[in-house]
């Protein structure tokens, strides 16, 4: 538990999950059925974690990911927890994405209209999905500062469209809103308590 930002952490090695499913002990994440099974395991693991949860989904061990699996494991997982009827409060960071994963992930995020945060091997975070320049700017602002008060945001981004962009970032759960402190926290800051 991070003392500054109250998050509960869960790291999921997709390669290990795949290995644990008897049907497919290989580094190849293919077919919708397999993707659905992997997502099921991830959701089950998440359900045992106290909320709010921050989960790092690690694809390092995955050599091949097809579009069906990207849709099930990335897009549908995120959509389920973005939805207001989500089973619990959870945020996600994708890590270990190889160049070969980029196309399937980008495609399914765009198709589902979803944003995602990815962490590269150096630790830098990147916003994925169909993101507007305004959304990217606000997300970068919060990412750079770590924690931003509502007043700071309001004075830095005063236009009406800025507020729409901010609301989308919050709704897409690529920034963490701390209502008790009237502030917004970047997932980069949230993950610091973990590392």
């Amino acid at each position, binding site marked *: 538990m991070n003392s500054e930002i109250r998050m509960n952490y869960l790291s999921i090695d997709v390669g290990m999950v795949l290995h644990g499913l008897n*049907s*497919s002990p*290989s580094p*190849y994440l*293919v*077919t*919708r*059925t*397999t993707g659905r099974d992997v997502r099921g395991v991830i959701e089950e693991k998440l359900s045992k974690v106290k909320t709010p949860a921050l989960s790092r989904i690690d694809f390092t061990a995955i*050599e*091949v*990911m*097809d*579009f*069906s699996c990207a*849709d099930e494991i990335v*897009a*549908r997982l995120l959509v389920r927890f973005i939805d207001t009827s989500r089973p619990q409060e959870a945020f996600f960071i994708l890590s270990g994405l190889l*160049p*070969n994963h980029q196309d*399937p992930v980008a*495609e*399914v995020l765009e*198709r*589902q209209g979803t944003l995602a945060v990815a962490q590269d091997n150096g630790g830098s975070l990147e916003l994925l999905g169909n993101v507007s320049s305004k959304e990217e700017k606000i997300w970068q602002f919060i990412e750079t500062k770590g924690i931003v008060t509502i007043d700071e945001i309001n004075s830095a981004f005063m236009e009406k469209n800025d507020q729409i962009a901010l609301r989308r970032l919050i709704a897409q759960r690529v920034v963490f809103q701390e209502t008790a402190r009237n502030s917004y926290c970047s997932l980069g800051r949230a993950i610091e308590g973990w590392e």
Partner: protein
Amino acid sequence: MRAIVLPRVLDFQTYDEMFAEVASDSTEAVVLDGMNLDWIDPNGMVNLLAVGSVVRDKTGHTPRLILPKGGEVTSYMERMGFFRAAREIFSTGDLVKQKEDGETSDVLLEVTQITQNSDIHKVVDKVQNRAGAILTNTLDYAPNAVVQFSVVLSEVCQNIIEHAESAGWVAAQTYNWSHRLGRLVVVISVTDLGVGFRGSLSSEHSNRFGKNWDDTRALEAVFVHGLTRFPDMGRGQGIQQIRKQVRKWNGMISVRSGTSRIIDAPHWFESASLQEGLPSFPGTQINIVVPKRIQHEL
């Protein structure tokens, strides 16, 4: 007994001739005469299996297959795993005795039956192990092309399980198209005997097309517009993504279903983008041809 004489060359441009022969409602027993077969590619093999299955189910008799005179073609069919796949379809009298583990190093992907999810995993396992050297050393693709190749195969095989509701076959091999194209190519062929695109989409989409709903509209709905019978977002992207990747490779993809065929033809392959009024045949047949990479084309 009715004899169906196979063409000398059985590939993606001639298998319609076989389909035409079995399109009738005849229940007479059939012998498929391949005596003069000089050349067969993955399209020829998987669609010969499809024809045999249709004949068997329609007539109630296991069709007989007469093998080519030339031992070279038969030997090649054996290496491609055709006879293992053909055991349940053709009478065994003329079939070559197949070694149980008859996989050979020069085959990219033997004729493989796809009935369940695990079959697709096996296909990807095989291709990941074998295709890397062929794609990079022989066809001059970047090392990561093998992953894209596996993804294409995975998506194209899932089409069988998710949409056809029936078994199917896949096969892939490299060829030297010295006369047709002046370079090497990879040919991937997938066929199934399922409900076809029209059957798959009818319950969800036929109403909006009214009287115009036919095989062509169904093909266009999937191939061009990415529609699927599943109402949720995220579905129907398989064929779209395959098209996109094949186009990046300057390749050709054709999809035949029912009585129509739609083709994404690159500059090197002259063809109408749509063929209608073909002999009716169950299921869906997909053909992908990926040529050797040439720098100035990319």
